[in-house]
């Protein structure tokens, strides 16, 4: 799959939330981070699907941890944003900031 230069809003949220999770982010943590920071409730399935897509584009790398009893003997999947993922976040940020700038409609009203 050929990488795109810009991310979708959901992909951007996922990457930013994963970055907040450090080097061992996982899906529940990402979903919680998006809910608490952006106020958007997301489905775990949607988070996994987006992370899979980002992994195929080499924007995140994933690995499987050890199975635990609390998870019914199932392993946890961890994610880390790659340097390529960081570049994609920066490119998207620059593009969005450029689009935002110079718009009088979006300037704060001062009373």
């Amino acid at each position, binding site marked *: 799959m050929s990488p795109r230069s810009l991310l979708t809003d959901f992909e951007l949220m996922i990457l930013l939330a994963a970055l907040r999770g450090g080097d061992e982010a*996982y*899906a529940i943590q990402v979903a919680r981070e998006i809910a608490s920071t952006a106020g958007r409730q997301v489905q775990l399935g949607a988070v996994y699907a987006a992370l899979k897509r980002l992994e195929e584009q080499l924007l995140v790398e994933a690995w499987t941890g050890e199975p635990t009893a609390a998870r019914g003997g199932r392993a*946890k999947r961890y994610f880390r944003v790659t340097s390529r993922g960081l570049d994609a976040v920066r490119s998207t940020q620059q593009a969005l900031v450029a689009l935002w700038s110079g718009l009088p409609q979006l300037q704060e009203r001062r009373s």
Partner: protein
Amino acid sequence: MTSSTFWVQAAVRLVERFTPDGEALAGDLLEEHANGRTAVWVWWQALGALVAVVWPSAPSEIRPLTLVEAQPAEAYARANVLLRRPVDINLGTNPAGHVGGLGITILAALAGHRAPVLLWFLVAAIVSGAVLGVIRIRRGRGLAASRAIVPLRG
């Protein structure tokens, strides 16, 4: 096994069987349930994951501009016909080929006789299959209408 545990296990097995990264997601659901999430929440997440498998939200690609003036005039009409052609959508309860409705009915009756709770699964599958089918048809029509190709003027 309590009723709640049974339903959670059923959702977990569905997720594990039918979704990519199913093991990790199943573990997440079990962990969250152990941390106080309800069986309804687990099912909501499981259904969301299954829907994401059926309709992956493909990100819209940025495509290069094409030289539309070089296309023959009838190319637009041909492309629009292709976009609007009907798509076969199976609204039946049977995803397997070469197994008729009678076979499914007999299987359901046998399974229901053995474990009556399975009949509720069958009813839920029929209802949700029909609803998902109708949604997919409506979505397909919407996409076909929005994708209509119009030649650029001026």
